[in-house]
């Protein structure tokens, strides 16, 4: 029997890990929404694709670099590059021609891209579950009857590093400042000499690469992957982005972690079959009482 403190510690870790997945994916939703006001419903499938790219690269590398952290990190980097490029290309080929079209056209296109992605992966994998078998040493830090595994700690560290790097990039580099400016006023950005389409492409690259990291992390953590895994994860991450305030980068981080923690608490209190109810109830409550999200701003269109 676990003590109350041990239960809290365990669920705290579960919540933080789950929240890391949500946050990493929510960032892509929020960045893309901020810059072109598109709810990119294909984003969950980028996460799924990232998981599969990581899975295949990990399998290929297993013979040479082994199937421990070295292989995982390399698989992660490969998935980031492939998905970053994929996100960029989707933006270039599917979305860019519609930037001046009504927003609904973009949204429907995003749903179409989502269908293409997961059906492609379904065909390639025959719709079967794949198992990600690694040889990362078990064990971790033990507190009474609870063990915080090294896997959990490394995944949290990776998430933390990525968030810090992203915050630095958005906050201090000229490219990050351009991204924020584009989300405020595109024509004026062009008058600053900013190639707006290039920055939009960069945003898709970064958002998709972050989702890919979450994909590979979920392989390591859950041990299995499936072409449909992006569906619920995408919706949850979108929920997290809305809770945090869509368009806000710190909001996506906060919303993701918060949703993860609340789901863990809900699971503990009511059982795991209730966790989705818990997440979406939170979304509804949020939309009723603070529709702009925790860190979102009221949008006022000004000329």
């Amino acid at each position, binding site marked *: 029997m676990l003590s109350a403190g041990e239960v809290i510690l365990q669920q705290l870790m579960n919540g933080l890990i789950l929240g890391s997945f949500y946050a990493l994916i929510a960032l892509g939703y929020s960045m893309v929404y901020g810059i072109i006001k598109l709810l990119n419903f294909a984003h969950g499938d980028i996460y799924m694709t990232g998981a599969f790219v990581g899975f295949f690269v990990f399998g290929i590398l297993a013979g040479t670099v082994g199937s421990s952290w070295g292989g995982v990190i390399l698989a992660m980097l490969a998935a980031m590059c492939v998905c970053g490029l994929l996100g960029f290309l989707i933006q270039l080929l599917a979305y860019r021609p519609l930037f001046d079209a009504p927003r609904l056209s973009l949204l429907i296109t995003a749903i179409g891209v989502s269908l293409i992605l997961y059906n492609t992966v379904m065909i390639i994998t025959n719709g079967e579950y794949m198992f990600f078998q690694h040889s990362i040493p078990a064990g971790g830090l033990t507190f009474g009857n609870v063990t915080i595994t090294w896997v959990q700690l490394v995944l949290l560290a990776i998430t933390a590093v990525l968030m810090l790097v992203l915050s630095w990039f958005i906050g201090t580099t*000229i490219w990050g*400042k*351009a991204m*924020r*400016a584009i989300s*405020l*006023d595109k*024509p*004026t*950005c*062009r*008058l*600053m*000499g*900013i*190639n*707006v389409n290039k920055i939009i492409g960069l945003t898709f690259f970064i958002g998709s690469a972050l989702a890919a990291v979450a994909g590979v992390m979920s392989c390591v953590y859950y041990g299995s992957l499936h072409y449909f895994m992006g569906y619920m994860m995408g919706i949850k991450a979108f929920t997290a982005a809305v809770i945090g305030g869509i368009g806000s980068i710190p909001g996506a981080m906060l919303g993701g972690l918060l949703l993860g923690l609340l789901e863990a608490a809900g699971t503990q209190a009511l059982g795991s079959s209730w966790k989705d109810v818990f997440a979406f109830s939170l979304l509804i409550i949020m939309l009723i009482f603070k529709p702009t999200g925790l860190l979102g*701003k009221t949008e006022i269109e000004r*000329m």
Partner: protein
Amino acid sequence: MSEMHDIVLKVEAIETYYGKIAALRGISFDVRDKQIVTLLGSNGAGKSTTLKTISGLTPANMGKITFLGEDITKLPAHEIVQRGLIHVPEGRRIFKDLTVTENLELGAFTLKDDKERQRRIKDVFERFPRLGERKKQLGGTLSGGEQQMLAVGRGLMAGPKLLLLDEPSMGLAPLIVAEIANIIRQLNDEGIPILLVEQNSKMALGLADYGYVLDTGNIVLEGSGDQLKSDEKVIKAYLGGE
């Protein structure tokens, strides 16, 4: 003597359409080196569209725009900026959620050298000390006059070889308008040619070496600043006098 002045900007018979509606119906004019040239006209005459067409925001459907000897008619806006043609837009368009410093940094986005960018920010703060005092404030929290200074400062960050100013006096108190007029005069004295669009014709004609009057997408009158100031039609229509 005036033939010796180099033409900085040459606009030839440009036509610009919004959908099927013609906003500009074949406009031609020049801006020469060291000049302040003004475009006057009532609301909807096509003044702002002329500037947007030159800077590439609403490209011309017909006609030709030459800047420092290069045809820029078909260039995208961000590439026109790289050539030193800088457009300070109507309504200032400050990035309101970015700080004063960040707004200025973006003005020099095309600059590769960050040290040079920081040096230019210092120059802007020397020119406009009030911006320096507010450098960490968000752009949206500045007063109208300060925002206009920031908009001009942001334009200067790019190292302009020609400055297009769209309604810099809009919505400002008379005292501030005078201040803005002084700034424009000073920039021109430093050698920057300026194309100025204004509703405040008195201010514009006080500054301009040469002016053009636009009406429904056509140039209907042109002349030196002094000629226009004493033109009866101009006095009646734009200077509010008899």
